[in-house]
């Protein structure tokens, strides 16, 4: 009798759950095998598809490159009426053969964008006219309004490369887009398409311009003729601290030394990154007055800032900065002492000759046995 409950338990609970587990495991195994076959077929299919697309792409590229080369070479010396006829002829050929298929359309566009990177002046203009006559600009503007973020970024990039000035008002709307790639492309577009105020967007930007963004903007700015580079003074006052950082960097890189007093005023900026940039500016131009400023600010600065200032003093290489560094080495703060010594060392000063105690401890004559 005492075995009855356990038998009931075995019959009612253990056996059915055992069966259920077995069924689930069997089904999972079957599903896994189906997935193995599915993924395998898909992988092979993806490669076959990619190879086929690649072959098609090469074939289209070959034909279109020939047509475009012929078009741009003839366009170089053509009169307006000749160019119109040539444009009509080339665009009809492309439309007829390739514009009906989205893949071919993308390949043609890629060829045009690639060619655009290598041409300038009237040839580039001819290419831009062909681009608009094929209505790529309309498609790009549509994508700009309705596409996903990566498509929007691509559209902005395309409109910028093909110099479509009337797209600027549409592009500007994305200046503070939530996606940073779209923002970056937009700002580059504004710089390239807005000939009168290439950096006008800096006054309107509310989102941070991070370092990667700044490097990209600088890369574009450095391609502009010198006379088109504006004074960065207005942006040194920006409420967006990243814009201030960018402005200080640009003042340094474009040698706008007349803005030195305005930059030095930023040594009291509440944001640490801005102040760090100021000391880099001081280092770069060896601004002698920087040593005086540092002497005044060093005692109350944050530890991180003190290190930046000491490095700056090392770069100044003036009598005053050297004296200041020597004073720091004489203090009892090990971290600051060593940083000051390193800063002096960089300027060729024989630090170890004067402060031999700063040398790293010598190794024992016989290496100690390892701890393990």
């Amino acid at each position, binding site marked *: 009798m005492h075995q009855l409950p356990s038998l009931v338990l075995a019959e009612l609970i253990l056996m059915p759950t055992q069966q259920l587990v077995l069924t689930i495991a069997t089904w999972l195994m079957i599903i896994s095998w189906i997935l193995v076959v599915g*993924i395998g077929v898909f992988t092979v299919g993806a490669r076959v598809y990619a190879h086929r697309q690649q072959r098609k792409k090469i074939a289209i590229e070959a034909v279109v490159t020939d047509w475009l080369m012929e078009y741009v070479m003839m366009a170089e010396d053509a009169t307006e009426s000749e160019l119109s006829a040539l444009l009509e002829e080339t665009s009809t050929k492309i439309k007829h053969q390739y514009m009906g298929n989205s893949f071919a359309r993308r390949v043609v566009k890629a060829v045009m964008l690639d060619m655009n990177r290598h041409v300038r002046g009237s040839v580039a203009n001819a290419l831009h006219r062909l681009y608009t006559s094929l209505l790529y600009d309309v498609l790009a503007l549509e994508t700009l309004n309705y596409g996903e973020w990566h498509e929007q*970024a691509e559209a902005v990039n395309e409109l910028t490369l093909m110099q479509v000035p009337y797209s600027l008002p549409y592009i500007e709307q994305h200046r503070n887009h939530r996606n940073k790639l779209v923002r970056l492309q937009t700002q580059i577009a504004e710089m390239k398409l807005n000939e009168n105020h290439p950096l006008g967007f800096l006054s309107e930007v509310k989102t941070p311009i991070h370092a990667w963004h700044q490097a990209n903007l600088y890369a574009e700015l450095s391609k502009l003729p010198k006379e088109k580079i504006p004074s960065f003074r207005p942006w040194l006052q920006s409420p967006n601290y990243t814009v201030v950082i960018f402005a200080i960097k640009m003042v340094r890189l474009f040698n706008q030394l007349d803005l030195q007093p305005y930059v030095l005023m930023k040594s009291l900026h509440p944001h640490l990154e801005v102040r760090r940039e100021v000391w880099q500016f001081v280092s770069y131009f060896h601004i002698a007055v920087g040593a005086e400023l540092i002497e005044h600010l060093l005692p109350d600065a944050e530890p991180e800032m003190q290190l930046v200032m000491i490095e700056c003093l090392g770069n100044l290489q003036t009598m005053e900065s050297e004296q200041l560094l020597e004073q720091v080495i004489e203090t009892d703060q090990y971290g600051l002492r060593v940083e000051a010594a390193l800063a002096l060392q960089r300027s060729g000063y024989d630090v170890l000759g004067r402060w031999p105690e700063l040398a790293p401890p010598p190794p024992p004559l016989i290496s100690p046995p390892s701890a*393990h």
Partner: protein
Amino acid sequence: MHYFVWLFDHAIFAFSLTVMASYAFLAIYAAMEMIYYKRKTKYIDYGILVASPLAPGVSLIAPAYNEGLNIVDNIKSLLSLFYNNYEVIIVNDGSKDDTLAKMIEAYDLVLSPEVVNLKLQTKPLRGIYRSRNAAFRRLVVVDKVNGGKADALNIGINVSSKNLVACIDVDCILEQYAICKMVKPFMESTKPVIAVGGVIRVANSCEIENGRLISTQVPSQFFPRIQVLEYFRAFLMGRMAWARMDGLLLISGALGLFDKHIMIAAGGYNHKTVGEDMEVVVRMRGYMLERKLPYTVKYIPDPLCWTEAPVDAKILGRQRNRWTRGTIETLLLHRKMFFNPKYGIIGMVSYPYWFFFEWMAPIVEVLGMFAFLIFAIFGYANWPFALVMIGLIYAYAVMLSFCSILYEEVSFRQYPAWSDLFRLMATAFFEPILYHPRQLIWSIRGNIDWSRGKNTWGEMVRTGLSAQPKVPVAGPLPNGGPSTATAAKPS
């Protein structure tokens, strides 16, 4: 006994299901991250950083221990990366061969008496060497008493003059734009980035010339080929997903870029563990979380670094044994994080995942096998269930490998030959049968060695990527002299 068998079956089933569910989740999450990454980097021109005055400074720190055979070429390769603002710090970790002499001769090095800020405690420094030749102005050679990889990296950090430090294996082959790609997350993130991890690929059987990868090929040997699949799963699936969750705990010792100041503040590399690469990331994360500082750890899925994978079972076994010990040591050192909400996703998800599925899973698997054997001997084995479970686990393992091959195929396609694709697919079928049991044994040995307090790397032998004769890297090394075939740790 029936109840016990019932309980055993159900426990094994529940554990397996949890492991499988977590892998499925990681695979899906990784796919989402991969799509996002590919879209994000479609228009990136890394070239703008190469000579940009706005590019942040990077110190490449590469420890070298008895690397005399290849050191000159390895340095040449490191000095020719596409980046302007960087220095290469080679730490000669008390090599017993002619590593230092070869460097001095090839690069015209002279002893340079310098002040060094000893922020991290290390074994004594013998000297710092710099080149008289301006062409090698980026090269700094640090000679020190042997102390292991962690110690060598720490002294490199002390000597470095840049704000970002890349800790690498000296004989890894880096992609030319590797620094540009790894620096980008530091430059673009809204949250401060404390570390960036890169993908490691297996370079065995690949064509290499003058320290550059010329063409890629799936390794012809079995173990390296298996490791290709392992690396796919680890780097394209596991780490991609963890990076998306911001829960990455491991950055391979072969390639990682770190914020130097945070690294120093957190205490640098721990030379008391053989899993220093994982431990430092966990500690840096802990440091930031305990101070409630905003931060993130990023990950780059591009194939940036190619390394030689162990070729024979003995060496591979030592490597896996060490990885197991490193994982256990790291988990125990940071046990306060276990299910601790103070540590956010690290404490609640990443750490428990590593505990249950990286440390415990092999133990559970082996215990399960033993228990089943005992049941079978006494006639209690549930054979239908056992067979279905074996079939399920095998099918699932093959499916995950296929999934990782698909990810590689649609993302980077580093092996363009059809034969390579089919060889990888075939390997996926053999791996669970021919390789997984060995892996279990190595893992269990790692647990046993850890419990005995073993703390050495063990002898490592590498054949060399340019088909050099076999070179033994002397050992056993105290905490491990730096060796290349050991550092790319997939999870």
